[in-house]
């Protein structure tokens, strides 16, 4: 079993039994090999976010099974699945805790997977290691260990969120349009950082993005989704040869087919 995540025979219909019934997935299949970094693109309503929600457990499929690193997780609640998954959200406020300091945020993230009991959360022995990790972000956060995270900019918070989810080993890193809410500069910084962390820690990553350039430039596989199915799934040489214009033309063809 070399797949890190597998979605098998997934059926999902929104608003079942109502007049607004919208079938999205019909016998949908998706899998991601260990160590692969896939970018998923697609128009609104194509099922990208739903795919992430199914993996994380915020949504339950009507039928089908989801496997993470070989074990079924379909019936597990979200917080159980997150023990082995790291997720960075579009909203920079979600991935960090604004009322706690950088040091406290890192101490919590560092303890992921362990017991949260009555021992002191912040120990002195970790300070140097945390500083080194923050230095790698190149945002000057290493001098602000005791600042509240709420005082940081969106870009800084998102970079920190990335660092937090990669502090403990996870099976899968989920990037949920994580650069979409940032200004172009911060967006670029966070994306480069993402790539660096994924390579250094050899993570399996699933990135949903609306930025076609990122999808082309980063990762070793590209998936385009449309109306609950994959219309393009390329990797290797074929992926490297694909340009933003190629993707745009597929987008346009799909739109014309739909009568827009």
């Amino acid at each position, binding site marked *: 079993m070399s797949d890190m995540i597998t979605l098998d025979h997934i059926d999902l219909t929104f608003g079942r039994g109502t007049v607004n019934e919208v079938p999205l997935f019909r016998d949908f299949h998706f899998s991601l090999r260990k160590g692969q970094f896939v970018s998923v693109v697609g128009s609104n309503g194509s099922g990208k976010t739903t795919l992430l929600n199914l993996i994380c457990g915020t949504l339950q499929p009507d039928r089908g099974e989801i496997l993470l690193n070989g074990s079924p997780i379909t019936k597990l609640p979200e*917080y159980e699945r997150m023990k*082995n998954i790291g997720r960075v959200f579009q909203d920079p406020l979600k991935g960090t805790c604004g009322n706690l300091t950088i040091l406290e945020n890192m101490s*919590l993230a560092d303890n992921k997977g362990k017991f949260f009991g009555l021992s002191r959360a912040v120990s002195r022995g970790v300070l140097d290691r945390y500083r080194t990790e923050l230095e790698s972000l190149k945002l000057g956060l290493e001098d602000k260990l005791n600042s509240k995270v709420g005082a940081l900019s969106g870009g800084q918070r998102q970079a920190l969120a990335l660092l937090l989810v990669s502090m403990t080993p996870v099976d899968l890193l989920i990037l949920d349009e994580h650069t979409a809410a940032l200004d172009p500069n911060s967006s670029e910084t966070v994306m480069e950082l993402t790539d660096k962390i994924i390579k250094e820690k050899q993570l399996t990553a699933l990135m949903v993005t609306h930025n076609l350039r990122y999808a082309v430039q980063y990762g070793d596989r590209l998936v385009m989704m449309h109306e609950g199915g994959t219309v393009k799934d390329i990797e290797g040489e074929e992926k490297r040869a694909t340009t933003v214009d190629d993707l745009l033309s597929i987008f346009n063809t799909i739109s014309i087919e739909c009568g827009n």
Partner: protein
Amino acid sequence: MDIFLGLLTNILEEGFIYGIMILGIYITYSVLDFPDLTVDGSFPLGSVTCAAMILLGVHPLLALLVSFLAGAAAGVVTGFLHVKLHISNLLSGILTMTALWSVNLVINSGKAMVPYYDMPTVFNGTLANLLPKGYGVLIISFLLVVAVKLLLDAYLKTKSGLCLRATGANPQFVIGLGKNPGRFKILGLAIGNGLTALAGAVLSQQSESASINSGTGMVVMGLASVILGLTLLGRVRFVRGTTAVLVGCVLYRGVLSAAMLAGLPTNYLRLLMVVLFIAALLLNNTFGKKGAKRA
């Protein structure tokens, strides 16, 4: 001068005893962002539980501990209703508070008031005899509230405490850690209502009686003190939230006492409590925005 000193002692005594509850409400309202109405029922629960224990001949300190546990159990019920049965936070509190009325009556043997004069309490034990006359209650209640505050401060720095603070501010972050934020909500409500019941028990030992009516208005008083304290001191560096809310509590009791001294008829007390609450809210909306939500 003597009258003034007596009044001041009185304000501080009440401020310290109710302060134990204020620390609990700080946990639920400010740290967990949960407006908990259970308080009106868990305060007298502590009071009647303590009376029942004392009358059974239990040591006064053990009686306080049992009262804390009774209050914590009430908090768990509210948390269960909210987290597991998905009832809204306000309604969960109202339901538990209403149910507690019956529980309190049963514990109090169906009586509204159970006196236990001349029974041993923390205020008439060996420690009290060593203290200067007239200041026993003041010093003992101060020691109690400081002990609770220091324990709470220490707890909020533990791994569990940090998770509790994260739960109120960003439950999604706690999920990301692979932890169930619902558990921490229930834990926070247990601490909050445990401390509320503890305050009720201490007040009961001080007055040597238990009244099932002692809880009315506790939510309003508690929230007003928390908001007042955090608005005034919430953004001052090096002042902890737990210190700020205790100052808020003493100030609040002080204003109430001052109004009574100025000749306000007792009948207007509840009205004044609400006016003060609204004043604290307005103050917070004007100056404090971030202050009151600071954990």
